[in-house]
């Protein structure tokens, strides 16, 4: 299955792009996607401890089941206002 990845702020700059597609085996969970992203984008390493991850617009735990077309967003600490 394919999921869509969105990178924001520092994550966008470190990944060198704002979005990507990721192909994963059927039945993958969020943690599987994150492991793949960690491999593909080593520049994200220092950010991981501070990132929140949303699946389809909601903050998600690593065990969250993904689906075809899920939208994953990597969200650094926020600083609006």
């Amino acid at each position: 299955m394919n999921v869509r990845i969105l990178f924001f702020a520092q994550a966008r700059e470190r990944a060198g792009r704002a979005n990507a597609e990721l192909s994963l085996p059927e039945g993958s969970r969020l943690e599987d996607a994150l492991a793949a992203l960690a491999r593909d984008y080593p520049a994200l390493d220092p950010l991981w401890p501070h990132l929140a991850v949303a699946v389809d617009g909601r903050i998600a735990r690593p065990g969250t089941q993904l689906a075809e077309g899920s939208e994953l967003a990597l969200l650094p600490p926020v600083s609006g206002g």
Partner: protein
Amino acid sequence: MPELLAGPIPVERLLAEAARPECGAVVLFLGTTRDRHEGRRVTRLHYEAYRPMALEALGRIERETGERFAVASCRIVHRLGEVPPAEASVAVVVAAPHRDAAFEASRWAMDEVKRAAPIWKKELYDDGSGGWVEGAELK
């Protein structure tokens, strides 16, 4: 309903929409761009957002402000893209029958915007470099 927009925040329209005859108080908070940060000269700010989730977060803050405080309305508007010094990046407008609730609600809503909305700010300095502002980890 919250708004995310490029360009100046239409403050006068927001105030006109907030005014209502059963209210005695309107509090407008504007977060404005400062031209210095930790000794460096900031020439402008750049804001970006995860738009659908940010709109949902701001909408949740508007509603929750109405539930937590005795206010008639709460509106939040955040500007995205580049914001020059002294211009507003965010506006919170609260209308309430009485002023204490209006002040408390405005302050709470603004704290929540900073804590819970997926919006990011990068400072751009006069030497051409830039830095993302240390923020709050989303939960």
